[in-house]
């Protein structure tokens, strides 16, 4: 065994380190590393918005800059982190883009200031769902943290919510939707009409629910009630006994092999459905669109028990005042003036001020997305991709049919901590 001790001719280790260090230095020096907030010399107004990401869309920031000259700095986090940030770092944001159940958690901390509806140009256009809880006068108010229950306070500075409409609005609603089960119509082999169908022994090992406790428990509650196992007083605020019953039911179903997997992220739900591992599962509407865009049949199945709904809005940070506060009102008025609403409607979400959004949509788009009519031409996504071919009809039909059948809203329970602990037991079981 002879050991060769030639000096390496290529790149020596030391040489590599040196070049590497020099290159890093050069990159730092040349300003190639970006991501630091840009300071716009021509316009000093910057609003910092943080939130759960659904509506943190770059196109909105760009359009806002073009229309108003206001620079929007957006930060996206998950919902738990958003709740925490809202309370613990109230000076780190100007606009909170959060869901209503998060608002219920954070508002009592005094970090959000209510808005005077007299300064909201399009307050009258906001759908009544967010004011009275009823989409139409004869609608039934859904369970859970319905937005109108946390929508108003009697006076600025109040920590508790008002019972009805007042002059002080806690958040301007921006984006919301109705969630249901997604199915593979080519693989289920029968009509799906109820949340209970996910427990059909025929689909054993071919179902999935989402593993995000606060939302998963609601889907489970919809299933339990549809099966006739239990009647909840309020699915959005269960008692310990109701939580126990629900979790025990889930554990039993898991041990019987009813579920194929539990998903946590958007892409997991898309892959489970697209690969045929699962034929019926909890799903979000953009995930259904993503499966369909692969050329695979997937349906966002309306169910007779109704939808589980969620909604978010924009809240003003307490520290806003003077020119900043004026800019924030200006931004919110712009947000509800239609362009953003049209954009969100075209993504398959709903805008809170439907009347203004209509002016920014073509008649065909309005017909397909909102009125539940068959599309006369191809339906494009806001980014310009074909989403549906001509002739397609939206799953679940019109806005009124879908949002009129909300059974419960995403919510935060009083027994939240207990529920999460039991949910972990279900996953470990």
């Amino acid at each position, binding site marked *: *065994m002879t050991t060769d001790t030639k000096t390496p001719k290529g790149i020596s280790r030391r040489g590599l380190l040196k070049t590497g260090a020099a290159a890093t230095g050069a990159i730092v020096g040349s300003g190639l590393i970006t991501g630091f907030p840009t300071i716009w010399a021509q316009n000093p107004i910057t609003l910092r918005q943080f939130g759960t990401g659904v509506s943190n869309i770059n196109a909105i920031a760009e359009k806002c800059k073009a229309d108003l000259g206001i620079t929007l700095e957006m930060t996206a986090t*998950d919902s*738990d*982190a958003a*709740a*925490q940030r809202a*309370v*613990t770092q109230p000076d780190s944001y100007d606009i909170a883009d959060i869901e209503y159940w998060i608002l219920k*958690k*954070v508002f009592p*901390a005094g970090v959000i200031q209510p808005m005077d509806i007299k300064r909201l140009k399009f307050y009258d256009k906001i759908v009544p769902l967010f004011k009275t809880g009823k989409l139409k006068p004869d609608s039934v108010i859904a369970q859970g943290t319905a937005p109108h229950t946390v929508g108003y306070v009697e006076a600025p500075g109040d920590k508790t919510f008002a019972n009805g409409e007042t002059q002080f609005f806690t958040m301007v609603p921006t984006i919301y939707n109705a969630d249901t089960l997604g199915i593979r119509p080519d693989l289920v082999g029968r009509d799906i009409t109820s949340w209970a169908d996910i427990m059909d022994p025929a689909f054993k*090992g071919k179902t*999935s629910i989402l*593993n995000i*406790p606060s939302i998963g428990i609601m889907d489970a509650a919809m299933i339990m009630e549809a099966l006739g196992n239990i009647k909840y007083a309020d699915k959005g605020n269960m008692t310990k006994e109701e939580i126990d019953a629900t979790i025990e039911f889930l554990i039993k179903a*898991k041990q019987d092999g009813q*579920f*194929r*997997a*539990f*998903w*946590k992220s958007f892409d997991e739900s898309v*892959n*489970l459905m697209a*690969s*045929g*591992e699962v034929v019926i599962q909890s799903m979000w509407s953009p995930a259904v669109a993503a499966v369909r865009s692969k050329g695979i049949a997937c349906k966002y199945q309306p169910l007779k028990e109704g939808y589980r709904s969620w909604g978010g809005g924009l809240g003003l940070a307490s520290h806003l005042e003077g020119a900043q506060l004026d800019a924030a009102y200006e931004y919110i008025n712009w947000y509800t003036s239609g362009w953003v609403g049209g954009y969100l409607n075209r993504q398959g979400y709903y805008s809170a001020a439907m009347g203004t959004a209509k002016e920014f949509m073509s008649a065909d788009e309005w017909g397909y997305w909102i009125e539940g009519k068959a599309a006369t031409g191809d339906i494009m996504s806001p980014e310009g991709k074909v989403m549906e071919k001509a002739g397609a009809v939206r799953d679940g039909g019109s806005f009124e049919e879908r949002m009129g059948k909300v059974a419960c809203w995403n919510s935060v329970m009083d027994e*939240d901590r207990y529920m*999460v*602990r039991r949910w*972990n*037991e279900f*996953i*470990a*079981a």
Partner: protein
Amino acid sequence: MTAIITEDHTQIEAAGMPGLIARIGRTAATLASYLQAGPLTLILGFFFLLPILMIAVVSFWDYDFAGLYPDFLTMNYTDTLGSWVTWKTYLNTLKYTVMVWGLTLLIGFWVAYFLAFHIRTTTMQMVLFLVCTVPFLTSNIIRMISWIPVLGRNGLVNTTLIEMGIIPSPIEWLLYSDFAVVLAMVHLNTLFMVTPIFNTLMRIDRSLIEAARDAGANGWQILWNVIIPLAKPGIAIGTIFVVTLVMADFSTVQVMSGGQSASVALMMKNQMSLLQYPAAAANAVVLLIVVLSMVSAILRVVDIRKEL
């Protein structure tokens, strides 16, 4: 060593001289070694010990969704240790650890043995060893996720078997099962077993094997009585790698079991994503104690320093 020699030297040389020089020499030597150890101590102190201390401290704090409150509560520990979920999760994690350890040891030893004793030239040994490491040039996550299209219901394995007429319907337990978790973990961790074992096998003096053969030992006897005892330090190092990696794994378990199985680290990740940091910290402390006792048990059995 140098310090001691100089010291002795000075003492002998300057037996009658004032002890001052000797003392200065000794202090300088001590100081020098402290200076030499300084940087590492600082780095380990700041980036390793301090964070662990922080975790230990936070594990006694109180919390709600909005923040952490300094306190001294044992609630996080009683909640963790008092729940059957924790015990079940630990058992499950240990089950994975034992299975993965056994399989990686078997495969790893086999590969290392082949490389060390059946490949004649050093060059070829190195080439083949590098071939073993090629898959490790891609990311862990990608290597793990690529199993999904292979094992799925309509995946490569099932489609092939069905088309060949071997099975009538897809095998369900290939994916989202313990099988999938263990398979992916073995795939991810075997190299950590191969490397140290290969290293110790290469250091075995070949004349020992010849001597054993001359003394009449057959192949198995040589393997059992000569090679394996000498490979123990490598096996122990590989075991430490594999055990610590599997005990701390969360992504493999989550992805390959489809969220159906729990592991200790996954439990912590769930708690952290719900901002229950003190609970996760308490869990981390418990896991640290468990893993450290496992490692010290391994070190009790095998003296790894013997071969380093």
